């Protein structure tokens, strides 16, 4: 066993030093290649992302033209005039301005009179130099690969081999020492035979053994039966590799922005494609270096951009010409949280009235690349919570009378959901 660990450690050290070397040489070369004013670049980038990015990209046509290298195509003054007040520029009869306006089908660009010349210059500087070159730590790829868990059975096989090897070595050592003249220990097999004969004759052991086996069998049997229909951890492969981690986690999109009916209705609702398009009309591709682990595979920018394209296909969005074609194709998601037909669970009651955090039942969604069922969703699980949780009677006029009556009658101000009738069968089964 020791040797295995040793080997691993050795590989790690080797890998890390290799990574370090690579990193060192890479950063060195970057420094050597260009001299970019990082401060201006950063300033420009920030401004660009907050003001321009919703309509412009550097490399690609979007709502407006691509802006990479725009300083080479247009005069600085013209650009400033356009940015500050393009309508005025067009009104003055500037041909270029009118032409570009027509080219983009008359979509109006807002005026940015608030920007100072320096700020505009920073933005333009950024459009020239582009994003700071990201240093991709080369080693991480390998490291991630190395950390990836092998299948569980492999470990067992390895362990078995190790144990066998250990036994063989032990036997060999023993034989060698015996051959060298050590006193011969009695054959373990022979002693086992004696023990076995003893066991065969001992009725008490038989009874205990049988009971033990039956109980163990029953325990596992019931356990298996109880898990029938419980889909905790259910993680189906969806038609789009949608990552909750990117949306809810990194970008902090509120759960109810997409699942908007949760506060009104029994269903939380899967967002319609037009909700996706609210953002994705402007986000056609993921950021460099984005990674999503999906169905055991790591998806990177190349694959993920294709996933975004799937939304466009569904919505009928022509990303080239930036218009809806009208040819829609609804997305067939696989439903993860399946309650049986005879259960009437109401999201609104829990979300709006009780104010429960989505995470309480759905788990750390913001960390899930691939969504799965976090809770068992069994009736026992529901009932446990209803038995333990006190109802917040304050602040909702609906409960005013109940609150008063409870205080008058029992001198208590706290009741659990169960005490208010929250575990009655008919409330959820009707």
């Amino acid at each position, binding site marked *: 066993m020791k040797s295995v660990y040793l080997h691993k450690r050795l590989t790690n050290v080797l890998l890390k030093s290799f990574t370090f070397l690579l990193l060192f040489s890479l950063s060195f070369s970057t420094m050597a290649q260009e001299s970019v004013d990082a401060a201006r670049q950063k300033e420009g980038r920030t401004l660009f992302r907050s003001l321009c990015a919703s309509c412009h990209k550097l490399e690609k046509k979007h709502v407006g033209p691509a802006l990479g290298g725009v300083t080479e195509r247009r005069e600085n003054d013209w650009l400033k005039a356009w940015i500050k007040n393009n309508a005025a520029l067009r009104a003055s009869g500037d041909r270029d301005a009118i032409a570009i306006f027509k080219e983009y089908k008359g979509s109006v660009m807002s005026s940015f009179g608030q920007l100072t010349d320096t700020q505009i210059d920073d933005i333009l500087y950024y459009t020239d130099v582009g994003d700071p070159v990201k240093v991709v730590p080369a080693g991480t790829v390998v490291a991630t690969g190395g950390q990836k868990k092998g299948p569980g059975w492999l470990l067992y096989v390895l362990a078995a081999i190790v144990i066998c090897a250990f036994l063989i070595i032990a036997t060999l050592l023993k034989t060698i020492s015996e051959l060298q003249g050590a006193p011969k220990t009695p054959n373990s097999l022979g002693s086992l035979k004696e023990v076995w004969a003893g066991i065969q004759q001992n009725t008490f052991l038989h009874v205990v053994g049988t009971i033990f086996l039956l109980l163990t069998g029953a325990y596992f049997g019931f356990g298996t039966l109880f898990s*029938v*229909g419980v*889909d905790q951890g259910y993680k*189906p492969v969806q038609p789009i590799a949608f990552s909750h981690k990117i949306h809810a986690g990194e970008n902090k999109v509120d759960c109810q922005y997409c699942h908007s*009916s949760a*506060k*009104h*209705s*029994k*269903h939380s*609702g*899967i*967002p*319609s*494609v*037009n*909700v996706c398009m609210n953002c994705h009309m402007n986000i056609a591709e993921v950021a460099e270096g984005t990674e999503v682990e999906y169905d055991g595979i790591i998806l990177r920018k190349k694959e993920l951009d294709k996933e975004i394209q799937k939304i466009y296909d*569904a*919505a*009928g969005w022509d990303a080239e010409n930036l218009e809806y074609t009208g040819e*829609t*194709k*609804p*997305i*067939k*998601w*696989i*439903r993860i949280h*399946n309650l*049986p*037909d*005879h259960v*009437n669970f*109401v999201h*609104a*009651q829990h979300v*709006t*009235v009780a104010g429960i955090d989505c995470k309480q039942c759905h788990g750390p969604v913001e960390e899930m690349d691939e969504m799965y069922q976090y809770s068992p969703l069994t009736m026992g699980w529901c009932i446990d919570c209803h038995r333990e949780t006190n109802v917040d009677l304050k*602040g*909702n*006029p*609906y*409960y*005013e*009378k*109940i609150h008063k*009556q*409870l205080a008058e*009658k029992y001198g208590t101000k706290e009741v659990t959901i169960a005490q*208010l*009738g929250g575990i*009655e*069968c*008919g*409330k959820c*089964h*009707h």
Partner: protein
Amino acid sequence: MASNKKYWQSVEELKGSSIVETLSKNEFVEEIPTDEFLGDKETLENSSTSRRDFLKYVGFTTAAATLAACEGPVKKSIPYVVKPHDTILGVADWYASTIADGYDFANVLVKTREGRPLLIMPNKDANGSTNARVQASVLSLYDEQLRLKEPRKGETTISWNTAHSEIGQELAQLKEANESVVLLTGTLASPSTEKIISEFIVAYPNVKHVVYDAISESGTADAFEAMFGQRALPNYHFEKAQTIVSFGADFIGDWQGGFEKGYAASRNPDSGHMSYLVQFEANMSLTGANADKRVVTKPSDQVFALINLYNTITGSSLPSKATPVDAYIKDVASALKKSGSHGVVVSGSSDKNAQLIAFAINDVLQSIVFDAANPLHIRKGNDTDLAQVVADMKAGKVKGLLTYNVDPVYNLSVGTEFAEATKKLNLSVAMSVQNDATANVTQYTLPMTHFLESWGDVMMTEGNYGLVQPTIQNLFNTAQLQEVLLKWSGNTVSYHDYLKAYWSSNILGGKSWNKALHDGFFTREVSNKVSKSSIDVVSVANALKKATKTSEFELTLFSSTAIGDGKQANNPWLQEFPDPITRAAWDNYVTVSMADARELGFTNPVKDNGAINGNYATVSVNGVSLENVPVMVQPGQAPGSIGLALGYGRKTNLKEEMQVGVNAYTLYADSNNVQYGVSIEKTSGAVHEFACTQVQKTIAGRHDILKETTLKDYTTIDPKDHKNGWNVPAMVSYDHQEVEAKSIDLWEEHNREIGHHFNLSIDLTSCTGCGACVIACHAENNVPVVGKKEVRVGRDMHWLRIDRYYSSGVEAKFNEVYNKEPNSQSIREFAKDSLGLGDGAMYAALETEAENPQVAFQPMMCQHCNHAPCETVCPVAATTHGRQGQNQMTYNRCVGTRYCANNCPYRVRRFNWFSYSDNKEFDFNMNNDYGKMVLNPDVVVRSRGVMEKCSFCIQSTQAVILKAKKEGRKVGNDDFNDACACAAACSTGAMVFGDVNNEEDPIVPLAADKRAYHVLDYLQTKPNVVYQVKVRNTNEA
């Protein structure tokens, strides 16, 4: 004493039939045939499946099922691409609309979920009311079987463009040749559509618009036109009435649109002027069943009695005849005179002259109930025009026919001739929602939208408008009549724009269109001047006398509560709805009186499974005969008269199960609802099997189910008076003192003061038995339809039924003699000793009473007992009690022992003997994708082997609570009322649902009312359903 009346549900019961006795003791009418099978040793041994084989099969299937259950199916969730703004998944949207299908007209609210209409409720802001058919019309929307899906030329499907161009060419040719074309529709009552039609007629002057109604009120419209110069029907404000005298007019049922709401408003015993209703009629109708005094009168006698009433009131002597009911006429005349302008007379006759006499009496009374100033614009069909069209078609004078949503081939007595004549026309186009008989004889068939997919407007009375708006996208390739006509007139505007423009320039008067559309109705002040022409009463009476031919048998044709004019005959909810009077579903039948039945040998024996059999008869009228008509012996039917419901016997494209009954329209000559010169003859041999629920759920001879009293007793006697009280609670002896049963308890009571506690109050005085609640419950709770065979063996699934009880007054006689209350022992002795009758004979004595019994309706559903007998016997705790007073049924927990149903004294639990969804054996709405769209997603569809029952609509009460919580407010005072489908659907306000823990809820005074009682209160079940004692106005001082 009124509350100790003898109540009975079937004639057989009166005869003391042992079968009925046995049935009353069994919860389930049909035993499971285990003894039959296991008791027969030989069969058991020779069975091809041996015990070992059986065990093998069981083992294998269990193992297979277990294995299969381990892997859950993959479910897909497909969101919208672009979600409509106002749609929130899982939250219902309500739209105000109006139904106007030519027979039913009502302001309604439509509940939709994710764009599917699920439920129809009355628009109470617009004073709307719904009946069973309006409630059920939402299912007809999804009628995949009967609805037209594509335009058709002959048998071939064509495109709309082809249809438009070809029909357009034909129309142009006919116009050029100046050949007559008829546009045949039912009553549209739509101002904008009538304008479009008039514009169409301007474009095609050779077109004539003819209106006819399947069930005609043409006589009344003619009479109204003669007297008031306008073609319409008079309006009646029964809420202002003190004395109502009706001659065969079923105004609580469907007569001229139904007036049950106004009538019920006049029935408040506390208001001091409860109306007094006298009904002279031959068939037992809903109105007769509700009447304070029902006088059995043959149709011809009704006519003469009406003239005699005129004579008695005015002192004139119009030509008439003496009738057996003249003694009553005198009483009635004096009651009417006493009421003065608060009296009203209505007649159900199709004869124009009978209507004129009735109008004349109201004129003499200066009745304020009768309203000619705001007449009804529904059912304005003109039979004279129709007869002319049929004659012209046969004579070849008409070359073109356009029909819209009418089925003359089915519902005219000359239907076959009409079909033949249609085939000879140059152009015939059926524009129809349904693929009906007419749509199959015309050259072109154009599919029309259902009203839930349409735009439109309706004017039921002058100045009262309703708007129709689509609540779902067109399910099929359909269009609207208005669009089609606009197109043919060369107008390119869409109907929606046309409607909007028409409303803003003609109706709204500057008010907001959006608001009108939101409300679904619009009211405009109109000042109508009535110009009354005088009529020559003598000549009218003469003509009437001449037209009325007394004959041995007279036939009254009527529309049944369930099927109406037959438009919705393919609607399984309506077919399964038991008739309020006979309690038979899935059928029409001829009703004969008990006396005639004895004479002609008709019987309705009860089988040991609770089913009722009957004989067949041949009914002939003036040479036209209907064969194999089932016969139902009907207590209260006038001897010498028979009754038969229209609207049945439709065959074309109906589901096989729905092709039930006989087509009575063939006897509806000249659209006259009374036919003289009728003969009825028993067909020997064959036995008809009725699906009748009346004996199946009898309440085991228990008393205190129904309580009633008279207005006189109600006002003068203390309800709890020991001797004469009309609402005496059950008493028990406790500590050697007699105390009210409800005051003592074996168990410690749960605390029910905190939170909500639901009660349902049902006023037996204002419940007319109309059954809107039954269908509303059906729709809201996904109640399955089980079909005729299953209903016959007592397996109907209605969560809410309306029990109908007959009663008669032998007890009253007993009371007269002994001046004390009878009990079952003493009444038998009385019958034996004083009247000299044996047990059987006593029933015979009762039976004579049964010739005209009193009727009471009692809606019966789970009583939600606080001490529920069902809960204590459930071995798996599948039925439990909620803190809010609801007895909850947990289907997923139920293992189907049926102990609960056996222990329920109210017989309201229903067992799923089969799986009724996705089962081709029960090919109703739950077995196809369209029909399933009507299912309420908030209520689970029950599977085989579980018990189910009324839940007090817990899904909706919870939704009301959740809405209040979300909005951070208290629940509104009558918010809960509309949560319960039955209470929301009740037009008369007989059902009120609410929270007794909210002092301001309208239920609180009702639950504590002196009329309030619990059914079977001596059982101490402490129900949460309270009934209000029925009060009859016997018109005593």
